[in-house]
């Protein structure tokens, strides 16, 4: 254990703090990621990229800052933005899932072409994984693509494609090798949402907005080089992406941001002039959550170190999504309670405008349940933790009634 800050690290911390103090007026509200970034968010993103506070370790030739990988630098930056309650930049599926996937398994050309616009927030991606018949069992995907004239021709249907209605691109898991076994028959394609034959039907959620979609493919054509790795490698690539998704969903910096935002609300005097932070029953609730957030953040640091050292974290990694999404929901729950009746006001804005805080927290509170459910309810996570993490046996197959054998 050595978290000593070198003089260089101390300098960075001061630099980030100074940057935040100087520019905080230009920052959009933290959160987002469920909408196309507005002008303010794009400008902020550009500023962060310029200073290396976003995409810090991504090579310059792909649009990043090109700094060497240093976990403590990243922690200093994340911590400074968390503490200040300032947006650390755009997080969406393209940035958090596709970019690291391309960095890990993409070709040089794919990296040069896609990473820059994606991290700048200009190119928005959606994920084409789930299908109506295969929610949890992704490898059972039936959407198929056959090769004709140097193109994949895609037919089928995806569901739960978040942001498909405003995305520019999709990363798609589909069946290209029907003769091969279930897992070996998949490929991972990149395609523009403007391609003819794609129909996006909004799927309205409990938030009242259509954060998800059903996406239909009818003879959609994509050049054969728009594939990540090779034909039949789709399951491998998808799992690279899922690894980053699980980390995204348990992101402790988001938890820390929320905690800080709640603390600031509790420091404001209420209608009666009293601050909730001065009421011990409220303070204790906040402190309980602070303890859990600290644990999540420390755990994340451990995982980052293990990743950097090539150690397989096993159980430690499997719990992150379940732990993080439940904790995020509890934070949103406290936020609603802190706001009380004022926090009921709810007027979600359109695709680019910012929501007011009450609306944002209400959306978080509901959306978090969607994230807990995502990929088949928390029970699926518990199966993964129990079976892959702890080595407990799988549920036995049910006895098939006689006559159906």
């Amino acid at each position, binding site marked *: 254990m050595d978290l000593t800050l070198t003089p260089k690290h101390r300098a960075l911390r001061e630099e980030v703090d100074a940057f935040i103090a100087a520019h905080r007026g230009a920052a959009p509200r933290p959160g987002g990621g469920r909408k196309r970034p507005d002008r303010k968010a794009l400008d902020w993103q550009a500023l962060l990229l310029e200073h290396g506070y976003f995409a810090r370790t991504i090579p310059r030739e792909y649009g990043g800052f090109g700094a060497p990988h240093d976990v403590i630098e990243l922690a200093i930056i994340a911590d400074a933005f968390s503490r200040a309650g300032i947006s650390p930049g755009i997080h969406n599926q393209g940035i958090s899932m596709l970019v690291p996937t391309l960095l890990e398994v993409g070709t040089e050309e794919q990296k040069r072409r896609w990473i820059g616009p994606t991290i700048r927030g200009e190119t928005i991606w959606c994920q084409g994984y789930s299908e109506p018949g295969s929610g949890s069992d992704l490898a059972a995907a039936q959407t198929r693509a056959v090769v004709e004239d140097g193109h994949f021709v895609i037919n089928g249907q995806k569901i739960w494609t978040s942001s498909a209605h405003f995305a520019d691109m999709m990363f798609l898991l589909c069946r290209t090798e029907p003769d091969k076994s279930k897992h070996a028959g998949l490929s991972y394609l990149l395609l523009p949402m403007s391609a003819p034959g794609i129909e996006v039907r909004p799927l309205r959620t409990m938030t009242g907005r259509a954060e998800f979609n059903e996406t239909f493919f009818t003879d959609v054509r994509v050049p054969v080089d728009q594939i990540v790795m090779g034909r039949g490698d789709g399951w491998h690539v998808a799992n690279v992406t899922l690894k980053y998704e699980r980390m995204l969903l348990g992101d402790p910096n988001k938890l820390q941001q929320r905690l800080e935002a709640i603390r600031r609300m509790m420091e404001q005097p209420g*209608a009666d002039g009293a601050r909730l932070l001065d009421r011990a*029953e409220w303070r204790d609730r906040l402190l309980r959550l602070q303890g859990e957030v600290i644990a999540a953040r420390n755990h994340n640091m451990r995982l980052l170190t293990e990743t950097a050292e090539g150690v397989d974290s096993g159980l430690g990694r499997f719990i992150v999504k379940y732990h993080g999404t439940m904790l995020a929901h509890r934070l949103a729950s406290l936020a609603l309670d802190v706001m009380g009746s004022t926090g009921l*006001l709810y007027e979600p804005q359109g695709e680019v405008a910012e929501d007011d805080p009450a609306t944002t927290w209400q959306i978080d509170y509901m959306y978090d349940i969607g994230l807990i459910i995502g990929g088949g309810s928390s029970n699926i996570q518990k199966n993964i933790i129990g079976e892959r993490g702890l080595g407990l046996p799988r549920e036995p197959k049910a006895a098939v009634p006689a006559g159906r054998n």
Partner: protein
Amino acid sequence: MRFGLTEDQGLFGRSLRGFLADRLPLDALRRLAETGTGFDAELWRGLGELGLHGLLVPEEHGGAGLGMLDAALAAEALGYHAAPAPFAAALVMAVQAFRSAGDAEQQRQWLPRIAQGQARIGLGFAGLAGQTGRAALRLEGGRLSGALDGLMDGGEATHFLAYLPDGRAALIEAGAPGVTATLRRSVDRTRALVDLDLAGAAPVALLQSSNDPLAAARRVRDAGRVMLAADTLGAAQNMLDRAVAYAKERVQFGRVIGSFQGVKYMCADMATMLEPCRAMVWYAAYAQDAVPEEAAMVAAHAKAHLAEVGREVARLATEVHGGMGFTDLLGLHHQFKRITFDRQVLGGPERCRHDAAVAQGWVAA
């Protein structure tokens, strides 16, 4: 001695639920919820025909003269079906306000109008009940000025009853000079909140006939809290019923999901939390009429406990439905949001428990 419902009460609850089930199929509910005013004229008329408007109004003023337990059963049914109708404030708290602090003439004048469904009164407390937001009203020379946020049942209200910090309440006509009412659509689109800005508005009545206006105001608050607890009971029961039904039919991995212990235990946990709440709400409602020394304590506890249980049930029932539970398709979220609303108005659990401690003399107010 009986701890339970009468036959009439059972009948009343069932007929109200039947009516609401008939009037509020999902597409109708979705349409009515669109406006966010928490009001639909036709539904309102229908509820009037069932006797809901005058439920608590004494018979001599044209009502049914029933008690708080009957009102709680109505609130439970309305919560069960997420009915977009003014009730807790307009038909329960307002009546309680007139009865506890209105003079005979005011009661004679207003209670019949409530019973006939003509006066729909939005009602607003300030710190008295743990509401947040602006609460700065002053009455000077018979004119009311200032701001009061979050009046319940405020959408399409004909009048507003605004509580002053001293426990008196002023009735104001909607649309009168100096009255600006801003509809703030709540996350629960079946009930609206209104923010009131007043600039020298003239009250049409001032409820100040109680010897102890703050105690009278607290009785109104407590009646409201019991209604919100009952509403949550209904909404949560609806979500549990639907989760159980879904678990019995949805097939995954070759089995109905309700045969998996994971899903079954979620349902069992919900039932274990929720089932004792029914008797708790009954008793809290009954105590408002019959056990004055416990009324404030049990109202606060019922409100707090149902809020905690409701939140858990809302999450678990949504989870049992998987992705479908998160969509708009099944409409499960109407009840989810109903539970959110009930929790956040008239004081959250911490505030209500504090009030319960005060009511028991454990701590000063």
